[in-house]
């Protein structure tokens, strides 16, 4: 990143005990990058290497009154970082390792509320390391979800211990919680260090690079594929992670991706069918505008009742590989899809931590925007882990950008909009129990 910012970048490493935090830390410290790095660690004695400066911190969280907003900060960090700033030898980077159970909020907020911290250091990014093998057991814990929600970079570590399908499903689940984080897979925390350092996660300029992928719409299904079906074909699957799965069959005009895309709207309508009794193995599934919920307690075979042979799209609530699902012809051979794709599902495992992206063309009224953001942060601040936005404000030539942690917001005016681009506002909220519709509606009320 090209920057004139001479403040010392700070990287925060979070992750459960055993996720590979220390391995990554050691990698960062031993790799030849020519940087002088000061490490502040919480779990004493873990870094066992000969290194210039490792300071043990005794995590001390306290509430701070910052104007009208209360937040928690790390008092021990303020003292340690102040001391580091006084040293004659300057460090190129500071790494803060948090305890496995720590919520990254207070660490991040420490850099927002103390002017001296802000003048001398810049929070570069929060890197969360996830143990691909064991994280499923920890997803229920608030700490893991919060660490994922806060992250700018997520390292899906120890991927050698799980198969490809599990890696993919884990990545999708993490992405649903935090859609703006960069996710990398690693073995023994072996990752290009440029991907975890100099992330620019808290740069206001960087806030503009909101990843458009999660501004995509969500669907009631996760997968769709086009098949050439004869009469006598069946949908066969094994018992899977859920006891039932929604499915619908849609006739389409051709075998390609565009025909599949044409079938999506119909499928969404089919899936909205609320009257869908459980379909037991052996019972037929028709292309009749209904949603079928397959009873998969023991797996089974479901005849596909197509009146005439032809091309059909099958849309499934979950990924076929999660249920070992396939389409079997009358002669017992497996029918392959001709085109298929995954969709961003709206159900995504019912995690209460999620990302909400808003993208709207058109100018926003400054007063209304301020009122809305203020009230949002005051009322929902504790549940909002990260927020970012690039906004087209009426009468303002430059982009208004903001980014925040809980209730604290950093704002500025960035590059001007050019004449040949649409003034499109983009916002991202990552938090707990967020109401997408309410956020969308709240923002739209600010439109001129």
């Amino acid at each position, binding site marked *: 990143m090209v920057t004139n910012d001479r403040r010392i970048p700070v990287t925060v490493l979070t992750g459960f005990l055993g996720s590979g935090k220390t391995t990554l830390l050691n990698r960062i410290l031993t790799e030849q990058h020519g940087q002088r790095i000061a490490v502040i660690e919480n779990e004493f004695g873990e870094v066992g290497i000969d290194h210039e400066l490792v300071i043990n911190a*005794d995590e*001390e969280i*306290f*509430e*701070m*009154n*910052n104007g009208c907003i209360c937040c928690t900060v790390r*008092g*021990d960090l*303020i*003292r340690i970082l102040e*001391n580091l700033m*006084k*040293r*004659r030898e300057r460090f190129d980077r500071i790494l803060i390792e948090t305890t496995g159970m720590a919520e990254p909020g207070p660490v991040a907020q420490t850099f927002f509320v*103390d*002017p*001296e911290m802000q003048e001398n250091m810049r929070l570069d990014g929060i890197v969360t390391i996830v143990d691909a093998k064991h994280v499923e057991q920890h997803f229920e814990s608030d700490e893991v979800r919060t660490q994922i929600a806060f992250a700018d970079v997520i390292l899906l570590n120890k991927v050698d211990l799980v198969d490809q399908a599990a890696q993919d499903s884990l990545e999708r689940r993490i992405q649903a919680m935090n859609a703006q984080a960069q996710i990398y897979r690693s073995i023994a925390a072996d990752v290009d260090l440029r991907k975890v350092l100099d992330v620019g996660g808290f740069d206001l300029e960087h806030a503009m690079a909101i990843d458009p992928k999660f501004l995509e719409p969500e669907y009631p299904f996760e997968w769709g594929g086009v098949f050439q079906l004869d009469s006598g074909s069946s949908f066969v699957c094994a018992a899977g992670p859920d006891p039932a799965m929604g499915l619908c069959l849609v006739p389409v005009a051709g075998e390609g991706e565009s025909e599949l895309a044409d079938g999506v709207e119909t499928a969404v309508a089919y899936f909205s069918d609320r009257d869908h009794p459980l379909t037991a193995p052996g019972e037929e599934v028709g292309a009749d505008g209904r949603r079928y919920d397959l009873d998969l307690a023991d797996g089974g075979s479901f005849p596909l009742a197509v009146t005439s042979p032809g091309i059909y799209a099958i849309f499934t609530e979950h990924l076929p590989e999660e249920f070992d699902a396939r389409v079997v012809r009358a002669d017992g051979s497996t029918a392959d899809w001709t085109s298929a794709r995954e969709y961003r599902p709206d159900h995504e495992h019912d995690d209460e931590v999620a990302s909400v992206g808003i993208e709207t063309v058109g100018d926003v009224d400054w007063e209304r925007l301020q009122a809305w953001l203020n009230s949002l942060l005051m009322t929902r601040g504790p549940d909002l882990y990260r927020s970012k936005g690039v906004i087209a404000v009426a009468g303002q030539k430059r982009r208004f950008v903001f980014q925040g942690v809980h209730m604290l917001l950093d704002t500025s005016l960035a590059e001007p909009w050019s004449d040949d681009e649409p003034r499109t506002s983009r916002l991202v909220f990552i938090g707990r129990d967020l109401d997408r519709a309410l956020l969308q509606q709240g923002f739209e009320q600010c439109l001129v």
Partner: protein
Amino acid sequence: MPRVSADGLASDFGWSVSLTDHVGSIALSPDGERVAAVGTTGPIAIIAIADGEVITTIDAHASAATTIAWNPRTGFLASGGQDGKVNEWSAEGAPRWSTLVQTAWVEALTWDRQGRNLAAASGRSLAMLDADGATRWSADDDVSTITDLAWHPEGNALASIAYGGIALREATGPNPTRRVAWTGSGLCLAWSPDGRFIAAGDQDATVYIIFAKTGRKLQMWGFPRKVRELAWNRSGRWLATGGGDTPTVWDTSGKNGPEGRAPISLEGHEGTVRALAWSPTDDILASGCDDGIVHLWSPSSREDPVATVELSDAITAISWLLNGSGLLIGDADGELRFLDLRR
């Protein structure tokens, strides 16, 4: 208004000594003839005031020394370090004793007036040592790191400050006799020379003035930054506070102290004030700023500085000589300068 520039300083106005880095604290020996100074990472230097000769340099702690305090009775120097130890040295730098308080940094160290009790704070622990370094008692019940300590001028009571407020104790035992609580993280303490008030600076950019007898507290806010600079004048009437670019002086005379009275704002600095010190002989206040400027003020008579010293690096510590005839000024680059005001 007299102005002094850095160039002429060394030759015309005293002496200058280079320490390893950022001068953290400086302390005058009880006889006023030596000054001890400690840098952020470096050793402790003991320097003769008369000519700036470095008498000794002490590698006082395995990691850095953090704080120093002269025993007013014996003239020995106690030091606290990042190693959690309190050590004592002769004025020539010979080791006397070493006591481990806790594993956390020793943030504060202070002798009572009689030089019998040395209070030391390390992490959440407070220890009371005797003049030989033996632990009289210790208290581990604070909720948060103790950031500063202050004795009552008579030495019969000790105040400590941490997150959540102040605890007061007798010199004789670990149980607090009073707690003055507020929501906020206390950073520094100063007990007025007349014993009436305890001033506390807070991370939340506020100052508290506590009536020592009753525990009643007044809160002052509106500071641009956290407040780490507090100084009482010799009589205990005036309290100077930092917390930004404008030193503020509070008149605490009268039954209600500073309550309802507008403070005097000393405007003239163009950076954050990092050090405040009153002359021990006159009501002259010295303020040092991170832009390298030291102003001298006579707050009760004039709004503008009565003198200005221009140095190049951020001022980090200021101490007056006992007779008020000169100033010791430490900076962020590790220079310790003596400024002789009689010349």
